[in-house]
């Protein structure tokens, strides 16, 4: 043999690579339990909400949450929003944004790890996968095995259940936009509108592909959020951290190490943290973009540490500040190597070591975010409680601004819209204030001239009126004269005023 024969075979450079399959192992522990609870809550909210009923009387839908696009109304329990009140939704979106800033500055990518729909549905799909194919090792084995009856059967069942979940997910979405029980019947009897089927189809496809097949690739390659969130972290944010100051150097078995008189760190390189990771990374490489901070590695490591009788928290939520300080303590200033002996004493860790301290929640930044968030919420609540349910909008005719009448008087025309924003029919008293001698005439109210009209407005409707205001010749004031249109409901004591102008020819014309 000569040296040349030992040269490695040339490898072709690949510019694209197949997805590296990840087989996350089932984890047990406090964070996994928390994730189960959050998953149950978020999925329940999503699937059950459209089926909740809310009695609004005979004139409105009884669905608790309904986005009625055809009639341009948005219902959420006791709140009904008209399109011009959309700022409530905008305000809530701003609150959600600031809320995310707050959570991110405290807990890093907690949104990604616990509540993001992608995370929740991947978790759900993994439950199915584990139930059908077994845990990590069994799945890896099955994946490598040639296709036989058993593998085919498992695969078909798995994909069938995934598809069923996907259809259910897409199906639940459409119920937010129409009466759920009616739509379900129509949907099954093929009488639902085309758009309902299209929506379910698209959402079924995305759920199945994203949850079953693409998984962490959605987070790594499609989602901008990991990049944005990473920019919002600071050195006091809690992130999932491998504490190498107590873990390194790793040993592959404590007995062997003891025999060799080698003082190792706590990490025994058991790969438990890697095996449970749904992103397929090694947290021990430090903070990385792919980490969604689901904290399952914490559970896995704590389990091992518990079995070894060592203190838990080798992987833990920790701030960069604490981590750096602990690293400095553990590093030998001469050799720059990590030496676990430097941070230990007979009681465990030395006192200078920093552990989790709830004070990290209270910092100027988090307090400020919370204050902004709370102010927005209070502002929205105040606006909600003070908003008008009776309105009058007026548009003055501009072509022409005024009309000369045969008796020498002047008439102005207005398009008046009276908004009855409650679920009861109402009789609104519509009157004018100012221009004392002037009278109103309204199209469709015979030829009656008066200063007060009773207007019936249907529940939850707007009524448009064409209103003429006549000022007799003797009382004409040249130019523009302000006056008021008043709409009121004496029973509820509601009142809305519109400041209008009456236009007459300028003097000398």
């Amino acid at each position, binding site marked *: 043999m000569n040296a040349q024969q030992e040269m*490695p075979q040339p*490898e072709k*450079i690949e*510019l*694209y690579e197949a997805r590296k399959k990840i087989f996350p192992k089932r984890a047990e522990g406090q964070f996994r339990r928390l994730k189960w609870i959050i998953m149950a809550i978020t999925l329940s909210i999503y699937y059950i909400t459209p089926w909740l009923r809310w009695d609004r009387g005979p004139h409105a839908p009884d669905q608790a949450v309904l986005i009625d696009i055809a009639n341009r109304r948005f219902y959420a329990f006791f709140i009904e929003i008209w399109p011009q009140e959309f700022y409530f939704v905008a305000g809530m979106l701003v609150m959600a944004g600031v809320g995310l800033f707050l959570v991110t500055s405290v807990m890093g990518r907690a949104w990604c790890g616990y509540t993001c729909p992608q995370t929740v549905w991947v978790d759900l799909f993994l439950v199915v996968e584990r139930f059908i194919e077994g845990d990590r090792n069994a799945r890896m084995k099955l994946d490598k095995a040639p296709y036989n009856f058993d593998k085919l059967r498992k695969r078909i069942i798995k994909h069938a259940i995934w598809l069923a979940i996907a259809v259910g997910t897409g199906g639940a979405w459409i119920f937010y936009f129409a009466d759920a029980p009616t739509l379900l019947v129509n949907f099954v009897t093929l009488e639902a509108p085309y758009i309902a089927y299209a929506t379910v189809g698209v959402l079924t496809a995305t759920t199945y592909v994203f949850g079953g097949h693409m998984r962490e*690739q959605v987070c790594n390659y499609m989602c901008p959020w990991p990049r944005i969130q990473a920019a919002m972290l600071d050195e006091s944010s809690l992130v999932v951290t491998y504490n190498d100051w107590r873990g390194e150097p790793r040993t592959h078995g404590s007995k062997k190490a003891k025999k060799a008189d080698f003082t190792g760190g706590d990490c025994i390189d058991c790969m438990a943290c890697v095996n449970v990771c749904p992103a397929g990374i090694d947290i021990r490489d430090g903070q990385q973009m792919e980490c969604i901070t689901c904290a399952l590695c914490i559970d896995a490591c704590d389990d091992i540490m518990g079995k070894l009788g060592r203190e838990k928290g080798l992987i833990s939520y920790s701030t960069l500040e604490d981590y750096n300080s602990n690293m400095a303590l553990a590093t030998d200033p001469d050799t720059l190597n990590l030496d676990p002996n430097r941070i230990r004493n007979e009681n465990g860790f030395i006192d200078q070591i920093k552990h989790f301290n709830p004070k990290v929640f209270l910092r100027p930044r988090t307090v400020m975010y919370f204050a902004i968030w709370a102010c927005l919420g209070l502002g929205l609540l105040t606006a909600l409680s003070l908003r008008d349910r009776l309105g009058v909008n007026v548009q003055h005719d501009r072509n022409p601004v005024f009309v*000369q*009448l045969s*008796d020498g008087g002047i*008439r102005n025309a207005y398009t008046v819209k009276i908004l009855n924003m409650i679920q009861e029919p109402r009789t609104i008293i519509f009157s004018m204030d100012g221009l004392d001698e002037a009278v109103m005439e309204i199209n469709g109210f015979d030829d009656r001239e008066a200063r007060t009209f009773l207007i019936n407005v249907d529940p939850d409707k707007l009524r448009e009126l064409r209103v003429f205001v006549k000022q007799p010749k003797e009382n004409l004031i040249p130019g523009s004269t302000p006056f008021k249109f008043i709409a009121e409901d004496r029973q509820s004591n509601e009142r809305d005023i519109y400041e209008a102008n009456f236009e007459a020819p300028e003097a000398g014309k």
Partner: protein
Amino acid sequence: MKDHKEIDDISGVETTQHEWDGIKELNNPLPRSWLWGLYGTIIFSIGYTIVYPAWPGITTNTKGLWNWSSRGELATEISKVEESRQVLGNQLVSVELEDVSQNADLLQFAVNGGKSAFKVYCSQCHGSGANGGTIYPSLIDDDWIWGGTLEDIYLTLQHGIRYEQDDDTRLSEMPRYGADELLERNDIVDVAWYVRQISGQEFDAEAATRGQSVYVDNCAACHGDKGEGIRELGAPNLSDAIWFYGNTHEEIVAQISEPKQGVMPGWNGRLSEVTIRQLTHYVHSLGGGE
């Protein structure tokens, strides 16, 4: 290119081995699924250009498998709308003019349809706000030369005014008192002062007294004893505040001497019955309807 992998020292990442003046590119391979996604979109776009019109030829382009066109789609939508309007249109034609206001939907259909037809056929003379112009009457005030009821407006719209092509047109010819020398110049000046008097404007008392007898002899037959006008004859009211051709003494004299005779075309046969009725209701709703 070397025949084995090359690892960048600093990042620890494989390079593509392409080199530009010593600068090399790191190779962080993209997932292959994205490549399939790219191929998928290419295949989709080819299919799209086959199904829909796309490829240009010398005189025309491919029509696609479904023969879809945006003009065709528009035509379908327009015919759908017209179909839906036909029901209300038939209803509008069969109902008496006065009874339309009892049906809110029908009235709305009539007024809105009339509004858009007005912009096309009427606004050139009467103005987009229907407030008229120097020689075109305003349709929104409460003064009507030929009447402001639905029936009157309907008739005017059908047959027009002084519209020679229509035998039933509304016809009124005020004599050309000056131009045809039916009255002396002095009498015309005097009667113009009298007309200003009966409409409550400043006047020359002496001349107006002389003018009164001229009025009774020549004008009262059509314009009425008090100048209140007679609609059947199309003779306007001379005692109110609305002046079609102006209310200064000179303007009145000019109108008596050589009257302006406006013409409005009749729309029978040129607009559909439905449109004429829609216009009737729209004009009636503008504020002057009687």
